[in-house]
């Protein structure tokens, strides 16, 4: 158990009165790259948010880097070595590119390491160096993702949770983003990739978890995930058809 960076055991979660997760259990081993798959509304992003403390769980157990997170705030979970690139804009739009980097590195590495980490980020993502004084919300969607990943590349966390990285990006940018993801994982960071685009992410991931309607429908090696995903979707389609007939 000690080599698991994230472990969810029988986790439930809700948004107000709307219950989103039911008895979710799976784990991410240290250094692994795990894909979290599922259709729209399956609860993938909710799992990512619960794992970082953004959405509180209502039942079950969440362990991060060997620590029980029951009484921890999300910033304390982050300081255990968890980086989260949320769906959509995951940067501070009102801060400049460099201020985004300074904020992140100051918290993770301390004052003395900030400058060298910024140089590493600029080295890995030259586009950030060119736009260092630009207000981050004026960057393109791809550049915003680069900024998010640049922070991770320059100061590798123990685990990265990447939520729908490919959303709204051109295919060529998606390729580049995934290449960076592979590099981050190769540097020793465990990665939990939340994705709707199955085929691309399964080339990277060692194991996969498939969610359906807030529950874990399947988990196992990525090689078998395609078939399992088709079965899950076929089941969902049968259910939808039955509902339509019924209504």
């Amino acid at each position: 158990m000690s080599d698991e960076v994230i472990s969810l055991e029988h986790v439930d979660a809700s948004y107000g009165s709307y219950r989103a997760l039911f008895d979710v259990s799976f784990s991410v081993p240290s250094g692994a790259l795990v894909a979290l798959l599922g259709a729209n509304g399956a609860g993938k992003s909710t799992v990512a948010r619960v794992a970082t403390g953004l959405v509180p769980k209502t039942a079950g157990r969440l362990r991060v880097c060997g620590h029980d997170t029951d009484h921890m705030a999300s910033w304390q979970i982050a300081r255990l070595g968890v980086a989260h690139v949320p769906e959509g804009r995951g940067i501070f739009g009102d801060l400049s590119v460099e201020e985004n980097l300074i904020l992140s590195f100051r918290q993770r590495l301390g004052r003395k390491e900030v400058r060298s980490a910024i140089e590493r980020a600029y080295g890995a993502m030259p586009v950030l160096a060119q736009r260092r004084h630009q207000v981050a919300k004026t960057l393109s969607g791809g550049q915003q993702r680069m900024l998010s990943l640049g922070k991770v590349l320059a100061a590798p966390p123990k685990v990265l949770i990447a939520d729908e990285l490919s959303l709204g990006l051109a295919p060529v940018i998606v390729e580049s983003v995934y290449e960076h993801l592979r590099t981050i994982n190769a540097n020793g960071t465990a990665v939990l990739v939340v994705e709707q685009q199955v085929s691309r992410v399964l080339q990277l991931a060692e194991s996969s978890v498939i969610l359906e309607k807030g529950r874990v429908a399947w988990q196992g090696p990525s090689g078998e995930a395609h078939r399992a995903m088709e079965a899950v979707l076929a089941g969902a389609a049968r259910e939808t058809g039955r509902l339509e007939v019924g209504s």
Partner: protein
Amino acid sequence: MGTFFDFAFTGVPYGCDFAILAVGLVLTYRATGVFNLAFGAQAYLSALVFYVLVRSSHLPVWAAALVAILGLSPAVGIFLDRALFRLLPPGATVGKLVLSVGILIAIPNITSIVFGPATRLSPPSLVFNLNEVYFHVGSVPVNGLELGPAVVTVLVVLVLLALLRWSSIGLRMRAVVESRRLAQMEGVNASGVSSFAWGLSSVLAGLAGVLLAPLDASLHSSDYTSLVVSAMAVAVFGLLRSLPRALAGGVILGVIQTIVAGYLPSNSTLSGGIQAALPFLLLAALLVGVPSMRRLEESQDPLSVCDPPAPPLAAAVRDRRLERPMRVGFWLLVVAFLVSSATWIPGDWVYELGIGLSLSVVFLSYTLITGMAGQISLCQATFAGVGCFFAGQLAIRLGFPMLAGIAIGGAAAAVVGVVVAVPALRLGRLPLALLTLAFALVADNLIFPYSWAGGGASGLFLPEIRVGSMNLSNPRPFVFLSCVVLAICAIAVLLVQRGHLGRALAAIRGSEIASVSLGLNVNRAKIVVFALAAAMAGIGGVLYGAVQQAVSPNDFVYEYSLVFVVVVITTGATTVEGAIQAGMAYAIIAQVLTYVPQRLDGLEPILFAIGTVTYAAHPEGIVEYQRRIWMQRVGRLLARWDQQRAGGPGPRSGEAPRGEHAGQERSPAIAPGEAAPIILGTDS
């Protein structure tokens, strides 16, 4: 020329008084994301405690300053953060404004109850000897009273600039203001940063309060509120971001005011009005004229998707079987109310009920502006005054009947509403609220004091509302008249709410850009709703004047607009019932409080100000929230009853509905790393 420079130099230290408050407003906005209308009230609290410690407890000035500025002030700030503002969802501009208005109203009233309403003469000075002349600028002597704020303001700006420039706290504060949750994802202790920011800004409020106390012969909370409202123009000049610009803006405003005061005749109403209204005219000009001020909205929190969805309205969760009994109950209540008003209720109570019904009409304007358009207007009492004075002047001067004046007053207020709405079209929520406040203050200082408007200092004595020989201004018939007017206005609001305009406003509230792309005429919708709201306020104002008969500009000052916002938001601005409940509650509580000791005079605003605290948890209003809860309880009881009649076990009481997955069983636990069976889509 020498006189001009003398006036200008005199204005520099005077402007520093504005500057220190504006710097405080800018710092609070940058550090916490709140445009803190209660900054003056916080300053007053510290000044009062400082005064009491020095004058009554005979503490040395330095010890009293330590307690008031470095002890009490940050404690109040941290309390406000932890107990109130932190509970608001991110980007809740309306919520932040309402809470700050609630605090602005609560603090002076609470201190009046705790410390008593005694006049506190000659407040002590913190740093310099007040009357000692330290040096001359040209021929202008500079004494301790002027030197203190000037020196301290410059020092404060330098210290804050250094803090924000050389420490990472400034960056963290900006990050937390933009998205508390995203900052936490970076490992930032957002709660700690937020508490520090509130503590720091409150220390500044305390410092300003103690420093500015000797400006007037005695200590009054209203002086602080007036100064802060004037300082708003300066803060806006600093674009709510720049401390040096706020400092410069304060000095410029001070200089302009002293020059204007120097050259205008001293004994005319116009010059007095211009001097008093100058900061608000500048505020309005800056808001409308400076492009970057138009959209002062905070950035959207990218993680707002983590928020639970807004709860449904009570009407939406009501069991259909309850509709008929509730309708019957409503009409029974109306009949009982009218019969009781006409027969056994004492006259003073009937009079207050008439006031409550008039205010209910005014409060319907908030259902339109806040509930439907999602904006905050801080000038609805002014619109009520426009309606009342216009109808009153027509009746007095031209002999128009007051009954027709109800409609005429509404129409006049609607026209003025359009005049205010047109320049406000492109403004975000906060700038719009500030513009309406500026308008209210300009009207208070520059329009209402004239005899042709508000009747001057003596006010107006309105003719009675008569139909034939019947005097409808008497309290008992007035209740019937105001019920009819309220019903017409309420139906009008309901028609708007359920019609095209209501749907358009709901769409605009969701996304203005998406609404434009759908072909909605956003500008027209905004102007129409603003005009309708002003008309409601105007009609309510005429009724309010008619039942009181004697009205003066003091009945419609901007403070009432602030109180009205707090009252309506507390009960619920999203529904017609909320507005009516607010009006009636306001009047009934006022009447009930006539039986408590005079010392507790400020209890009513305190009650409603405390009510705003519930806004964070229940933005739909506390009454609306309670109605929903009861509707859900009754609905569950009915469902249980149905189940029992059908022979099956009903749901346990207190069990909340659980969304679309309600009733699904828990899936069996799956060991990590182990392939689990596919459990979905099966026919079993």
